[in-house]
């Protein structure tokens, strides 16, 4: 491959403009009507999940929620382009992607509810636990992909991270390992312009984050992160290429974190409201809805069906999280090792004794 082919396009790939009209002469396959409709449905559900989670935080049912409000197109596309045997590596912000992969929303929110475990079975769903230490999961993704390659399986791994995480050493090591071992990994960076309070300009002065690909001998591509059609096209092509032995790829989506980093954050300390407002017009849902309506693919009836489906997800989420699960103190010791060490057995007995004495009081 001539080396310049590894560079991203000058501008992020866009298939739908802000009004939902198809961009004339855009490169890349445009998704089918059916795919667009399915994606729109997932977007509506994703948005509703973000709204519901926000409410649950206020009601004290979630400890913390890093919302992907405004980034739903990225979340949804990542999940939709994957095949059954593929693996997803999400961060704390990727709840909508995880649910998109079929994990139960209540299980998905276990970690953010304040539990110490990931809530779902990562092997069953082929979804890694949500990772908090930034960029560390990217190299795990390479290991999972390489194991599949060694066994001759055609698994592809979707490894997600934010713009801030690209500054970590582990980002570098992961991309380099993937390239050297030709591991079938799609590194998907959601550049939402902020790492908590720190703007992109403090993370990187590169022409784009996708320009990092060439330094590993890996194609880099950039895409409008609020354009579901472009995301399906670019991420879909990356997954196909990885699956057919083309090696890893780096995809940067340009999007925006519409809300604070989490509910605990106060975004007014570091950014202006008008910056946020500017992005309101670029809402991914507006765009897909306008497109589908312009093509008469979205009837009012269908719209209310979709809304009802989203509501059902939200309701199940709320109901599930309203249930108080009493934690079992044995949980403290059970999974530290396959079998507890003599030391842990001693400590567990100590605690059990303490608790029984307390009860006796």
């Amino acid at each position, binding site marked *: 491959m001539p080396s310049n082919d590894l560079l991203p396009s000058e501008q992020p790939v866009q298939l739908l403009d802000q009004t939902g009209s198809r961009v004339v002469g855009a490169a890349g396959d445009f998704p089918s009507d059916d795919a667009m409709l399915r994606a729109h449905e997932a977007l509506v559900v994703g948005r509703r999940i973000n709204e519901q989670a926000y409410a649950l935080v206020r009601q004290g049912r979630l*400890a*913390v929620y890093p919302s992907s409000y405004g980034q739903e197109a990225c979340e949804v596309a990542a999940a939709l382009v994957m095949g059954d045997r593929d693996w997803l590596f999400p961060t704390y912000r990727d709840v909508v992607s995880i649910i998109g992969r079929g994990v139960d929303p209540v299980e998905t929110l276990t*970690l*953010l509810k*304040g*539990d*110490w*475990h990931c809530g779902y079975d990562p092997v069953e769903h082929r979804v890694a636990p949500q990772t*908090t*230490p*930034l960029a560390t999961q990217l190299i795990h993704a390479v290991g999972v992909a390489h194991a599949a390659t060694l066994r001759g399986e055609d698994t592809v791994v979707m490894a997600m991270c934010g713009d*801030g*995480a690209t*500054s*970590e*050493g*582990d980002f570098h090591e992961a991309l380099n390992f993937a390239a050297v071992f030709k591991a079938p990994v799609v590194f998907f960076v959601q550049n939402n312009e902020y*790492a*908590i*309070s*720190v703007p992109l300009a*403090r*993370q*990187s002065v590169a022409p784009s984050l996708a320009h990092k690909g060439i330094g590993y001998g890996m194609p880099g591509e950039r895409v409008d992160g609020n354009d579901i059609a472009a995301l399906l096209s670019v991420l879909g092509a990356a997954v196909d290429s990885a699956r057919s032995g083309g090696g890893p790829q780096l995809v940067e989506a340009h999007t925006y974190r519409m809300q604070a980093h989490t509910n605990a*954050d106060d975004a007014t*300390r*570091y950014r202006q409201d008008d910056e946020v407002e500017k992005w309101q017009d670029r809402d991914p849902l507006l765009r897909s809805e306008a497109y589908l309506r312009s093509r008469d693919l979205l009837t009012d009836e269908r719209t209310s069906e979709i809304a009802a489906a989203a509501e059902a997800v939200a309701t199940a989420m709320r109901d599930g999280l309203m249930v108080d699960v009493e*934690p079992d*103190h044995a*949980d*403290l*010791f059970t999974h*530290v090792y396959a079998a507890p*060490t003599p*030391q*842990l057995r001693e*400590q567990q007995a100590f*605690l059990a004794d*303490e*608790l029984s004495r*307390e009860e006796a009081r």
Partner: protein
Amino acid sequence: MAEHEKITMAQAFNQALRDAMAADESVLMFGEDVGALGGVFRVTDGLTAEFGDARCFDTPLAESGIVGMAVGLAMNGMRPVVEMQFDAFAYPAFEQIVSHVAKMRNRTRGALTMPITIRVPYAGGIGGVEHHCDSSEAYYVHTPGLTVVAPATVADAYTLMREAIASPDPVVVLEPKKLYWSKDEVDLDEAQPGIGRAVVRREGTDATLIAYGTSVPIALEAADAAAAEGRSLQVVDVRSLVPFDDETVCAAVRSTGRAVVVAEAPGFASVSSEIVARVTERCFHHLAAPVRRVTGFDIPYPPPKLEHLHLPSVDRILDAVDTLQWDDV
């Protein structure tokens, strides 16, 4: 003291940084979100506004880079203070801390010094999610070349931070997250004992509780509760983990003949192991019973709903005191 306002420990740290930066131009504060945001705990609040963004600034998101940059700045005349956003997020910087920050003075025979302060918001008790509540002090104290302090009071937060920044050597300041919002009426100008000194926080005659950081208030509470039951417990606040104040700690233990070490980190090969070992080595014939430990279990930090079972509690401390073979006396 009545004329002083009540301030929080976070404010005391903030004031220490502010005063240090005002006093010495070479003091720089940097890390993740320490600029406009003022840190996720607001410890650096207002510093960029007051000193400009050349003195207090955000970096790219990379802890090894942050500490490594501090090493270079220190090599070239600066006095860097860095914030690791949470205890567990300092681990990517471990190599820089152990192989460079701690060893640079030695490997250059004093030609290059490392007056670096590494601020680590540490420990739990705040209902935090995984990776946000580690007590990582054992890793640092075991590393020769590092000084490690763990303030437990608002006054100490100020004093130990100022001393850390003024130190010619690298200092890890363990900031007890749980106590950030604890308040006290303090005269910041009043001299407190410096790094290397332990302090007896409460006199007592029957047994000695040895604690630091987040465990000091619990130890004091336990002593209160014990007093109500007629038992007089002395409380020593270690404050400075390295260097360790053998003199004060051992004098205290010898005076009571019994001791319990309290710390929330997992106990295995920890600061509390060291305290048990060195106190026993030095005070063996004064001891009526083995020195006991009340520590966290040897498990990853537990979830919010279970953390109270992991953390040293008043009852657990009193139970440990009860095992100090009182019948023998």
